[in-house]
């Protein structure tokens, strides 16, 4: 399957007064058309930053300092602002966590949808209105023909997030970046929104990058998962493998620390310590100070993504030439 989105060695830096913080360091992944790639990690791991870099909306002074981003073969990380603006919305739709900040409170939702549709598809106002109503129906808003003239504040949280989904999809983009789309929603509404997003993107063969810290949502929605740690991809692979048989020691710890719903455990597994700050990322593997399996090489040399069975993990335990091998964590 040819990749729709290719990210290669992406490096994002924040120049500070005295030093340069590296927020993303050598991030690489692909997303194929019709595929959902989940991106997980703890706060500050660089998940949202990756999304922002792809749509060209890094907050200054953040800048792309290296690597390439290609959409359908076209390099988009170095495009002029105007050209990138046309790609955002038309080719790449975005869904953010908080629907209230995405929607303009001063315009009716219909007007916002029509504006997006007309800007990118160049059709008449009347036709755009019909499409706007059609999209509201498709995302499950009852009485769409009337609600199209309502303002965002007249919708509940779940309904607003449906409007945001309609807004992200109405120009029929080929890639959707959904950054914590359900985090602000209650669990009963969350299920509705995830089901909707999945169904709509599957119908159109849209590629989705789903950024979330909720493994449950990923397990249910994604085809593949990238696990991020301290601005790097720690592990990437098919969702079932990463969730059920994680290979990277960080992923192993992360999965074990999720409280199980189906049983009570006396003591949850925990990873000691905390993720390092960007200003204090240790040399070698960023996870080495917290890793129960770290050995000499981990503290000196940074591991690249290596084949680890069904997934790829950035861990020296999977280097065939390492003195210590992955058998060590099989039973962890």
């Amino acid at each position, binding site marked *: 399957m040819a990749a729709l989105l290719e990210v290669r060695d992406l490096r994002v830096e924040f120049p500070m007064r005295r030093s340069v913080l590296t927020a993303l360091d050598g991030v690489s992944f692909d997303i194929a058309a019709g595929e959902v790639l989940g991106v997980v990690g*703890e*706060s500050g791991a660089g998940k949202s930053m990756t999304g922002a870099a792809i749509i060209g909306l890094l907050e200054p002074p953040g800048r792309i300092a290296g690597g390439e981003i290609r959409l359908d073969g076209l390099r988009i990380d170095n495009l002029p602002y105007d050209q990138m603006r046309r790609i955002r919305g038309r080719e790449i739709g975005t869904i953010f966590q908080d629907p209230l900040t995405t929607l303009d409170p001063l315009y009716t939702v219909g007007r916002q949808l029509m504006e997006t549709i007309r800007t990118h598809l160049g059709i008449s106002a009347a036709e755009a209105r019909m499409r706007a109503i059609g999209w509201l129906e498709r995302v499950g808003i009852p009485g769409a023909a009337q609600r199209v003239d309502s303002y965002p504040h007249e919708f*509940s949280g*779940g*309904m607003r997030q449906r409007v945001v989904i309609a807004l992200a999809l109405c120009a029929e983009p080929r890639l959707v970046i959904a950054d914590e789309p359900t985090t602000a929603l*209650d*669990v*009963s*509404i*969350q*299920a*509705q929104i*995830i*089901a909707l997003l999945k169904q709509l993107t599957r119908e159109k063969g849209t590629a989705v990058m789903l950024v979330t*810290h*909720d*493994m*449950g*949502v990923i*397990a*249910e929605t994604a085809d593949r998962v990238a696990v991020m740690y301290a601005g790097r991809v720690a592990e990437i692979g098919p*969702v*079932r493998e990463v*969730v*059920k048989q994680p290979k990277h020691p960080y992923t192993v*710890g*992360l999965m074990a*620390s*999720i*409280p*199980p*719903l*189906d*049983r*009570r*455990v*006396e*003591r*949850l*597994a*925990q*990873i000691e310590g*905390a*993720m390092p700050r960007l200003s204090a990322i240790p040399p070698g593997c960023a996870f080495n100070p917290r890793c129960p399996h770290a050995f000499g090489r981990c503290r000196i040399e940074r591991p690249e993504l290596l084949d680890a069975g069904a997934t790829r993990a950035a861990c020296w335990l999977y280097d065939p030439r390492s003195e210590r091998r992955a058998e060590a964590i099989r039973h962890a």
Partner: protein
Amino acid sequence: MPDASATVPMVEAEDLAKHFDVSRPWLQRLFSGEPRRILRAVDGVSFAIAKGTTLSLVGESGCGKSTVARLVVGLYRPTRGRVLFDGQNLAKARASSEQRRRMQMIFQDPYASLDPRWRVRDIIAEPIRAFGLIADGAALRARVADLLTQVGLSPLDGEKYPHEFSGGQRQRISIARALSSNPEFLVCDEPTSALDVSVQAQILNLMKALQRDLGLTYLFISHNLAVVRQISDRIGVMYLGRIVELAPAETLFTTPRHPYTRALMEAIPDLEMTGRQRMPVGGEVPSPISPPPGCPFHPRCPLANDRCRAEGPALVPARGTEETLVACHAVEEGRDGRLSPASPATAEA
């Protein structure tokens, strides 16, 4: 675990209610002819927490769980009902200094609940000073160092300021502060919701260890059923200001009775990837300003009939059990057997 019936419960809530007046200003109401608007955040909640145990309240946003937490510690004055703390009525007068020493609260956001301009040692020592527990400077410093060690920090961390800590460490500081007055009862309002999952595990383990070591009683507020299962002895499920089901933790998960409890569990994403399809609960939580008549869950309930639409159910023991309390006509009448994971859409037909 002490037998709840034999001893006085640590905390008891009786028919607790809190109504907020959210009307527009009087003049605007006069012109628009609008009636007063009363938001019934909590509307008749009763429970008891035995000493040394944990009661959790779960529910979605707006169900009133945080309001209950605030009522229990006396941050709000109840509109109706009362709170008994160790047998004494709290709602009658302002809680005495001694009562306040014995209960403490931990909040959701460790970034907002610590004063950024105070050193950690002063933050932790504040309750000790306020209640006049330790007068001697050296003894106070030793106590603060003990507390820091107890929550897994270093005594040296006392010299630092809150911004030097991560979210999980800040929550540890909040816990140390809460423990500093030797409380017996802690109200924890979503203490791990702002934390990453690996840090959440650390905090939950710490809270369980502290309960075991110090014999603490917890009222734990959360929206996360998996978290609640790890920490609770009993669980109350709240919906629109009321408890719809109150049961021992394991019973609630193995045999949930109320249709809302079942729907909540259905809606949780499946990490085991058994291929089970999630059954979304149709519809949304109604507004607590104009709750539906009868059972508040009836517009979304697959089992609702005419009685449910007219008459509100009371929280009573479910059939064949003493332990589980359920507020549902369908369960009471034995109509709940056919509740398979049906979508509410089919129930409307």
